[in-house]
Structure formats: C-alpha cells, structure tokens
C-alpha cells in the first residue's frame, strides 16, 4: 500500500525498553511458576516468550484431507486487526508494540461474582487444542488449530444472574500500543457481543495459543474469542473486558455499517453481504473457490440455537 502510517511511538521504544524488560521478566516468573504447578501446561522453553503448549486435540475437521490446516505463516501474516492498520500485513508488521504482560480481563455486569482475572490465572484453565474452520466475512477462509478453553468455563465462575441475556466483549483501547486507533475506520474500542446461549455453547472458546504456540500479537494476544460458526470479525481479539448484560449490546462493525454486519453474523451462504455474495469462499492457499457451508459447517452443533428464527432478517 502506498499509504502506510508508521507509529510515532516507535521512536520512543528505546526509552521504554527497561520497563518492558522488567515486565517481561516478572511475567516470566509468574508463568514459570504456573507451569510448574500444572506440570506440562504450558511448557516454557528457555526464552520466556517462546512458550509452547502440549495439549490434547479435542476437536478437528471430520475430513482433514478436505480441511487441511492452513500454513502457520499464512495465518500469522494475513490478518484483519484494524487496531494495527487496515492492510492484511499491517498487524504482523505493527503488532510488536502490543504489551501482553501484565494483562487482565475485567468481568462484570449481571453476575453474582464480578472479578478481574489476570492472564496468569487464565492460563491455568485446562487447555485443549481445537482445529476450527475460520470464515472471514470478506470471502476467504482458513483452518486453524487453536489452543484454549471453553468460554463457558470462565463465565460459570462469575455466576451470571437471571438478568444476563447477552455477553459484551471489549478489546484493549490504547493508542500508544495500537497505532491503528488513530484512524476513524471504526468507533473504538472494538466491541463484540454474543447471546448468552451462544457464549455458553461448547464450541465457543477463548484462545491463548495457536499451532501449539503462544498466540502471536497479530492474532489477538494474549487472549481472544473464537466462534467458529460466525464470520471472523465476531471473534474479538485482545480482550480486556467481558460484561454480561440484559439487552443486545452494540458491536463495532454493526455500528459502523448495520446493513452489512448484523449482530448474529452466522456464516450463511444464502444471505449475501450487500456488496458481495457469500455463496463461495477461497480457502487461503487454494486457487479455486469452494462452496460456503451454512454455519461454516457447524450446523449440526449450533443450528438448534436459532430454531424458529428468520436467519435472513437476523443476519
């Protein structure tokens, strides 16, 4: 792209390095302690940030020949993470400024036990690997092995009250770490939402890793949502806040262009995006297009959530 605005904060990086180092070291120790307490989860190698996970694979495509795993290089260099720029390679180029330690998620709203939980404690949840298809609203798709745990496990801890009908999520909103926040492409911070039953569904997960490694910054480190039957933008990255609410929460893309990006945004080949067809998709790395499947191929598991709903009206 011709127009690439580099972050002025990059010039200041030298100044903050000591603090960075300090924090990294601190998280190293915390992470190391957690790893020891849990045996093999996660396994930290000599370098603090080159941690890897050895976890059981619990979900994978029925036919791995039909859905081969996307090369890691593609999944980590072709990203939509507008907080770091709108180009596909911008997040990989710019997300180095994101500081993932210390990191906390504040969970509140309609819950009995609101809490703020640090990334060290989030890493203590029993991890598993799940290989999911990811379908972007733009018409491309990937197959990614995520490492993480069911969102339901976290939500159960805060005990949602009877008033909780929806779950609202929010991404970090720090222009110093995220140069893309200076553009007006979206109403920052990035927000997303799910209905409570969608959030509690066993397929819905929080990911802290991919390809057996710690989640790269450009993929939403240190913790992100993955909802495999919805378009990718629903799977919000770098989460700092989760709020259980009574009414359907506002979501970033829906606020920006309500006709194009609905609250539900379930993958649906029958409902076109106003500007392009959603009937087909190109699997990244392949030449010809494939047919897009309803609910991205997870209809058996999730179609019942929408029984009796008009999916054309609730796109």
């Amino acid at each position, binding site marked *: 792209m*011709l127009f690439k605005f580099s972050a002025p904060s990059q010039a200041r990086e030298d100044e903050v390095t000591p603090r960075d180092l300090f924090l990294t070291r601190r998280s190293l120790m915390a992470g190391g302690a957690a790893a020891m307490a849990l045996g093999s989860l996660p396994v930290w190698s000599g370098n603090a940030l080159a941690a890897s996970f050895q976890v059981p694979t619990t979900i994978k495509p029925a036919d791995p020949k039909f859905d081969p795993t996307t090369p890691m290089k593609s999944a980590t260099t072709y990203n939509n993470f507008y907080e770091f720029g*709108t180009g596909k*390679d911008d997040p990989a180029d710019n997300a180095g400024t994101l500081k993932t330690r210390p990191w906390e998620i504040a969970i509140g709203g309609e819950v009995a036990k609101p809490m703020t939980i640090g990334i060290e404690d989030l890493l203590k949840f029993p991890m598993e690997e799940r290989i999911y298809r990811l379908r972007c609203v733009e018409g491309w798709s990937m197959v990614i092995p995520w490492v993480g745990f069911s969102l339901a496990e976290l939500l159960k801890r805060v005990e949602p009250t009877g008033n909780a009908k929806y779950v609202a999520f929010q991404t970090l909103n720090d222009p110093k770490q995220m140069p893309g926040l200076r553009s*007006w*492409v979206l109403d920052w911070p990035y927000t997303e939402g799910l209905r409570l039953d969608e959030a509690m569904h066993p397929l819905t997960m929080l990911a802290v890793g991919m390809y057996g490694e710690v989640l790269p910054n450009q993929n939403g480190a240190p913790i992100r949502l993955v909802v495999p039957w919805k378009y990718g933008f629903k799977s919000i990255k770098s989460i700092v806040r989760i709020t259980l609410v009574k009414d359907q929460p506002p979501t970033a893309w829906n606020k*920006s262009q309500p006709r194009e990006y609905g609250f539900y945004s379930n993958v649906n080949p029958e409902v076109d995006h106003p500007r*392009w*067809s959603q009937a087909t998709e190109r699997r990244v*790395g392949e030449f010809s297009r494939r047919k897009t499947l309803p609910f991205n191929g997870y209809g058996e598991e999730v179609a019942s959530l929408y029984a009796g709903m008009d999916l054309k009206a609730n796109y």
Partner: protein
Amino acid sequence: MADPASAAGGVDLRAAANAALASRWAKPAVFILCLVPLVWTVRLAYTGELGAEPVLESVKVSGLWALRFLLIALALTPLRMLTGVAGLARFRRMLGLFAFFYATVHLSTYVGLDRFFDWAAIWKDIVKRPYITVGMGAFLILTALAATSTDGMVKRLGGRRWRALHKGVFVAGLAACLHFVMLVKGWQTAPLVYALICIGLLAFRRWPIRLGRRKEPRFGTGPVRTSSVRTRPAASPRSGEAPEPRFPDGSSPARRS
C-alpha cells in the same frame, strides 16, 4: 521573479527538464518504468511472496496501479501549468494507455483468477454489486478512450468531438475512486486520499493556479477563467513552452512516436 530561467546564477531547471523530456530516450525510459509494477508483481507471484492470498493480492495491486496511472496522467497538465515544463504533455497518452493496460490486467485477474471465468457469477456481480457496476463503468470509459487514442481517430472524430469524448477521463477517474472507496470495509484512509487527489485535479481544471506569475483573479472575469472546463491552458508565448500543439491532447505531431 520566481521564474527559474531568470534566477541569477541558477540552473535553468525548466529548460533542463524540457530537454530531458524531449530526448529520444525519454519515451522508452518512461515506457519501461511503467512496466516495473507489472514485472515486480509477477516476480513476487513467482517467488511466492505475494502473501497468503496471491489471487486477491494481484487483483488489488493491478487495480491500484490502474488508478495511480490514471491520476498521474491527469496530473500532467496541472503539473505543466504549474512548472511551465511543456515537455510533460507528450506523455499523457502513454500514461493514459498504461492506466487502461493495468485496468485490463485488473479486470482479467478478477475474471480469470478470482472468479475463474464463472460468467454467471460475474454478470450477477456486475448488476448486483454497485462497486463492481461502478468499476465496470470506469473500465468501459477507459476502453472507449483507449480505442480513440490514435492520431487517426483524432482526425476522424475531429478535435472538438474528440476533446468532448476525452473529458470522460474525469468520469472514469471519479468512478475508479468511488469503486475503491466502496469496496473497502468502513471509511479507510487510502481510498479517500486517492479520491481527494482526483477531485483536486478536476478542480484545478476549473480554477487553475500558476506559479511564478502575478496573481490572477481566481473569480470574476479574469483572463484565466472561461465558462467551460478547460482541457488545456491558452497558449502562452513564454520561452521554454512548446509551440501551439496541433492535437487536442496537447502533443505536437512532430514529437509523436
């Protein structure tokens, strides 16, 4: 006073630029330069460096260069008027044709690589997706302009009709910018910047500015302003400017290759 030619002891930049542009190597050099984006992109595709989605990337890159060449071609006249480098005019046709060339590559990659000649899907796209409708419109205009770009067509159509037809380049430019603005998600910076440049170049034809001269009235009945959009400035007898060109695109017949 700001006339470079009269600057005491200074190099006559305008004359130097004119001499360079009039050289017989200038056109071949610009021609080769215009092919660099194509060669570079093909090279990246060949070495697998076009990213995770090489098909979409080649559609994007060719479209971007079509728009860039169109804007460069549109910028030559304002640039000539601002700098007095008359030699720029004879590159307008070549750059315009390169815009058409890259637009053709853009359309071909979309039809052949992205849609794999699925004509039914392509037709549905054209009639149903406004950004593709607008893009196709821009391409059809550029096709008409490219087809009438030869000296023979200028003669056959006659200067006035040819000029009227080739004002369509502004419609094509605006349509191409609109196509870009409409196809991205949200209000992104780059397409808006291209659109602003295009509007600026169009506005310049209406309200031209010249450097190195006494201020001319921007509004009112000054000599600069005429009632219609101007495709080229009135001939000026200043030294360093080419003689009144015969063809309406501003080039002189002797310099045409």
